[in-house]
């Protein structure tokens, strides 16, 4: 009935998810970084900073998926998910300060912390909304399926 999914395919599915997440968070952080640069009248982005950002996003993506139960897609928040939220936010914030993305500005670094918290909340909300829409679709199809079966039985 169902094609067996190989170990490789399962790994690939997870890997694709991590790549997608890494890119999403990278572009979000890059946006904040670019806004900081623009506000300070700098119209170029440091390629070293961008490299650090994407690599960090990739590593945190792995941590999110393998250690913290993919908390940004979670529907229930247990210890691992809350810990993941806190740890990942802290790592992004501390790394931004240490790597000098925001010229070691405390104010902008705190701003980044708030930005990342809001970003995670948005992502969680988006996935939750997507699931609610899927729920509606699934239950509508279930009702139709069961109604079709009843109609078939009545015809019989």
């Amino acid at each position, binding site marked *: *009935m*169902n094609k067996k*999914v190989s170990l490789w395919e399962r790994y690939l599915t997870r890997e694709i998810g991590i790549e997608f997440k890494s890119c999403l968070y990278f572009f979000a952080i890059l946006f904040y970084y670019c806004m900081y640069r623009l506000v300070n009248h700098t119209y170029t982005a440091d390629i070293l900073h961008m490299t650090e950002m994407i690599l960090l996003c990739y590593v945190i993506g792995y941590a999110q998926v393998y250690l913290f139960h*993919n908390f940004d*897609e*979670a*529907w229930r928040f247990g210890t691992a998910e809350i810990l993941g939220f806190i740890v990942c936010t802290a790592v992004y914030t501390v790394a931004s300060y240490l790597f000098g993305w925001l010229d070691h500005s405390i104010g902008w670094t705190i701003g980044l912390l708030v930005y990342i918290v809001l970003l995670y909340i948005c992502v969680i909300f988006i*996935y939750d909304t997507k*699931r*609610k829409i*899927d*729920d509606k679709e*699934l*239950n509508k*199809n*279930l009702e*139709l*399926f*069961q109604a*079709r*079966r009843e109609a*078939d*039985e009545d015809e*019989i």
Partner: protein
Amino acid sequence: MKLTINQIKGAEPQVSVTYDEMTPEVERVIDLLKGNHLRLTGKSGDETVVISAATILYIESVDDKTFAYTSDKVVQLKYSLAALTEMLNDIRFFRCSKSMILNIDKIERLKSLPSNRIDATMKGGEHILITRTYATELRRRLQGGRGHE
């Protein structure tokens, strides 16, 4: 019971059952026509019972034993899950995991979970987790057309 069979050219096939009183025999004929005829034998406690496939909520295999759950009893069946999958070759019975078959007609509601999994709440209140691979098949079946697939 009188049986009358008429061939009428161009007519749509139909079966009509006329009865004065709903006897077990009449009920069996109607069940057969509705596809609810499959009966399974098993043990509930010390008692040997026969259950209709239509009353099954789900079937689970645990430690090489197979159990069918209805709304009011748990019956240990003598068949393997593989054999039951063959016997219950019906659109409403769906293999939802390596060790479970569930009756789609007895699902109360479905809830989408992360990683493309689905939580099925059965009419008895049980929650059955359907993993990604089987969830895809369930979606396909619910979207599918009439009859067997």
